[in-house]
């Protein structure tokens, strides 16, 4: 009887130890969350230079400069302290070295709060860095890390990536700003679907070429402009697509279904077509053993703006003429994109490989290993079907 009671008490005591359940708890106030990460070519910042001159350094080759955007706990929690002396809701910290993790750990000897990656939203990589290093090398750490979520979006930057994480707006956190701009996909297809880390992982593993949205900065403002192309077999940055190409790319891959097409009419006045529906279809065809792609683009929309005051295009007059002009313009834009992908960069970033592997798996297996080569030699026929369904609420 006594031994049983003793056992019971012993068990209770042992269980008690597990009840606090805060063994590895960390208070969120004591952590520095980072929301943005920028990767640049190795270049010491003035602070770092000054530090290193005093011997504050360690053995490294300065291959990469890593900037993180820390979001102070008080601005995340919504508790706005009225008189913050710094005024800025974010804090960028930069370090230079060879390994991303090592640089991260170096921050710990410069800042009091440990950094934590659970809330990383945006990674910006400079195209300059991607000429030197492979994407796989740069993404390795963020994919392995257990804090950083695979939902993080990856972008490229034309200039220094760290400049995209700077804003002149007082109450704005640039990393969140970049993430939120993606919502404007409803308005323009110049914004591509963001590439998240888990997709990046798949792209790198399958060694396919891909396009990443490009960020350009000036005067503390960031613009999404075009896209950079990363070659699958090398993992290096090979070139840029301009805004119009990027828009066409979004349409081609069915990622974007919105946007405007502007052209000049018979009086050389601008007129604009607003897309209401869009569908593109890529079909792989073989005629006589030669592979070719048929691209069919069907779109309907509204004529939303015209500057032609004399011969106003409406449902009764000149509608066909306007339709034809827009159609030509769209075809031209598409041809320009295909031309760039096939001849300039020899990189299939528009998902032709996906269509081929689904429609003709046997043929795909044969050309899988040197797909970008095959792609650049494959004829692509573009067929546009454009229809103006209405002319807005203003008629002459």
């Amino acid at each position, binding site marked *: 009887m006594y031994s049983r009671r003793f056992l019971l008490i012993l068990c209770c005591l042992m269980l008690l130890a597990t009840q606090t359940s805060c063994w590895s708890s960390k208070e969120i106030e004591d952590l520095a969350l980072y929301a943005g990460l920028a990767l640049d070519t190795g270049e010491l910042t003035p602070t770092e230079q000054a530090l290193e001159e005093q011997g504050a350094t360690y053995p490294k080759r300065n291959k990469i400069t890593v900037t993180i955007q820390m979001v102070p706990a008080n601005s995340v929690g919504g508790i706005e302290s009225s008189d913050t002396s710094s005024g800025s809701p974010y804090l960028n910290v930069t370090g230079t070295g060879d390994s991303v993790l090592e640089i991260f750990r170096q921050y710990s000897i410069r800042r009091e709060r440990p950094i934590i990656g659970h809330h990383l939203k945006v990674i910006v990589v400079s195209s300059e860095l991607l000429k030197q290093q492979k994407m796989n090398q740069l993404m390795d750490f963020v994919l392995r890390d257990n804090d950083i979520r695979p939902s993080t979006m990856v972008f490229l930057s034309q200039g220094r990536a760290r400049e995209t994480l700077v804003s002149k707006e007082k109450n704005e956190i640039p990393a969140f700003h970049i993430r939120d701009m993606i919502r404007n996909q409803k308005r323009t297809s110049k914004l591509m679907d963001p590439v998240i880390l888990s997709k990046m992982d*798949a792209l790198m593993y399958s060694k396919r070429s891909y396009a990443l949205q490009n960020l350009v900065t000036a005067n503390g403002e960031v613009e999404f402009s075009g896209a950079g192309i990363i070659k699958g077999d090398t993992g290096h940055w090979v070139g840029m697509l301009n805004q119009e190409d990027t828009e066409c790319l979004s349409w081609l891959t069915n990622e974007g279904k919105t946007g405007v097409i502007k052209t000049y009419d018979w009086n050389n006045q601008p007129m604009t077509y607003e897309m209401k529906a869009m569908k593109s279809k890529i079909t792989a065809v073989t005629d006589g053993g030669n592979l070719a792609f048929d691209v069919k683009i069907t779109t309907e929309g509204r004529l939303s703006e015209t500057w032609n005051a004399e011969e106003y295009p409406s449902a009764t007059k000149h509608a066909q003429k306007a339709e034809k002009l827009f159609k030509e313009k769209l075809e031209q834009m598409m041809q320009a994109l295909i031309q760039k992908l096939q001849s300039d960069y020899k990189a299939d970033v528009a998902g032709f490989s996906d269509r081929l592997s689904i429609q003709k798996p046997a043929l795909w297996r044969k050309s899988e290993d040197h797909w970008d080569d095959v792609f650049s030699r494959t004829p692509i026929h573009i067929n546009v079907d454009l229809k103006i369904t209405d002319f807005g609420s203003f008629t002459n």
Partner: protein
Amino acid sequence: MFVRTDDKITATQAAVFLNNTLLGAGILTLPRSVSESVKTPDSWISVLLGGAIVMLVVFIMVKISQQFPGKTVFQYAAQITGRVFGGGLCVLLVLYFIIIAGFEIRTLAEVTLFFLLEGTPIWAVILPFLWLSTYLVYGGINSIARVFTIVFPISIMILLISFILSVRLFDINHLRPVLGNGFPPVFAGLKSTVLVFTGVEVTMTLVAFMEKPKLAVKAMLGGLAIPLGLYFLTVVMVIGGISVDSAITSTWPTIDLMRSFEVPGFFFERMEFPFMVIWLMQMFCNFSSFFFQSTLGISQIFKIKIHPIIYAMVPVLFLSAMLPKSMTDLFAFGDAIGKMGIVLFLLLPVLLSVIWLIRVKGLKQHV
């Protein structure tokens, strides 16, 4: 309170019992292990095919068990093949259960340490589960079955909610082409899909505990159909969500799927935390089931009382969990368990059935 003294479970309880024995850590790694061997998006066919094979296996197990009402494999194996040989087979089975139990709780601990409790020592994660499980197993099959029936709907619900929310990433093109490389990759995947069903051997003891052993076929196949359906769903959602290429490179693809999206404004913004926390309960059930089976085995083979064995098992299970030194070891361990499962299947239900058929039908002996 309604207290049962006869230690019997209903058909539904038996089905849930089997389900909770199968559905555990496998769901976290299955998309990777299948994709690694299939390499095309056809892994879902492998899962269905593997499930069909296991259904057949379970059918054989139930049929042989039904010949010995109220007796578990640990008892009737000796009857069929003699004490020494039968006992030897059963000891193998017990060892197998101990190893799976260790594997399950170790996986549980590894996932917890990597994603949830970085910095907590591993024993501090394993021991509470081990103690709690001891308490549960002490209560006998009835208490275990009842805990399972409580956990089952909760964990299934959270899994389904997570998958429903992951639809935003789902792209049917990730699952195409169907059979682009023909059937060979599908067969290659069978190896790993059959492995996720390791533990179906418990069928051979569960039937003995059923109130109405006649319902055993229905209950066991029902209990198997649920994990089969969920495995199928998991593979479809994970491959459809993050594609084959990403699933291959990810250590925990199912968790990575949950980590690949955020749901602003939903009750939880991130599904991986509720999912993992709830799934721990499922892995706990898994572990408890094998804990129970192994103690039952020892008790019945050596005819010893079960309660002291339960206590004696605690350190054994702890050691079994701590055996793998690294994650690589752990996954190698998992593969080894699968291979053992196949050998045991050949040794136990098949061999026993064959010998039993020869003795009863051929030699007209009374067994």
